[in-house]
């Protein structure tokens, strides 16, 4: 039995993944499988909705890190919206807001997709 699940929705060509529950090293493979499914279906505009995500560890963050480059190479982006404050803190501690679009609302994230905007990985 898992305390994590992923729901799939679509909006104007954006694939939205609704994350529920707790994302840790045990449940991270489920998120990975969901992202792989998007890529196999040719969906590269991916929006993660964290409204019902209660917890995340670095294993969960690692999934985003492992896939974002491939998604951007294909012309898409992986944006993140509606994180709870405690979950956002973990993204923030590791410096994610510099490298990922993390937005307060799903509507703002969808607008950025509509405008074709995405962050660029700064060269170091």
């Amino acid at each position, binding site marked *: 039995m898992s305390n994590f699940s992923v729901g799939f929705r679509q909006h104007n060509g954006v694939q939205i993944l609704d994350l529920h529950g707790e994302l840790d090293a045990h449940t991270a493979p489920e998120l990975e499988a969901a992202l792989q499914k998007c890529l196999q279906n040719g969906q590269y505009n991916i929006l993660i909705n964290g409204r019902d995500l209660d917890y995340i*560890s670095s294993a969960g963050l690692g999934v985003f890190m492992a896939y974002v480059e491939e998604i951007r190479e294909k012309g898409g982006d992986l944006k993140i919206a509606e994180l709870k404050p405690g979950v956002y803190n973990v993204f923030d501690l590791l410096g994610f807001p510099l*490298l990922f679009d993390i937005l307060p609302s799903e509507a703002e994230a969808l607008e950025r997709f509509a405008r074709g905007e995405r962050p660029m990985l700064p060269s170091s």
Partner: protein
Amino acid sequence: MSRTLYTLRIPSSTRYLQTVRRFVERHARAAGLSEEAIERLKLAVDEACTNIIKHAYKGRSDRPIDVAVLLEPDRFIVRIRDQGESFDPTRYRAPDLRTLIRKRQGGGLGVRLIRQLMDEVTYRSRGPYNEVQLIKYLTPSDTALPPSASA
């Protein structure tokens, strides 16, 4: 002053990470820690146990991990022991996030996160045991409830 001590043994499988988080959460809340401190402790113990499963025990799921919570007058300590390969913290270099993304790698951030979350982290090896202690200092806002007044 004597320590209050609770212990939990889990097998080295990620399916028990949730159990460990609940254990630490319950005792940290009973000790009157702030919600922020409780969240930090839950994440730190999860990261430490995940590293033990992946690195000390190389993914074997049937080895023991012993978790203990100790309450001292000025600090809350989570002590974690394993009998796997030891970790040398002096050889750890925190990876750069941009480099990991370019290499399409997701790992290696747990130790950095633990250090950011805790006030103090100690590692030692004693005979067959490795031990890590995750330490959160108690602040006046943490001690709203005396330990004796709660579960």
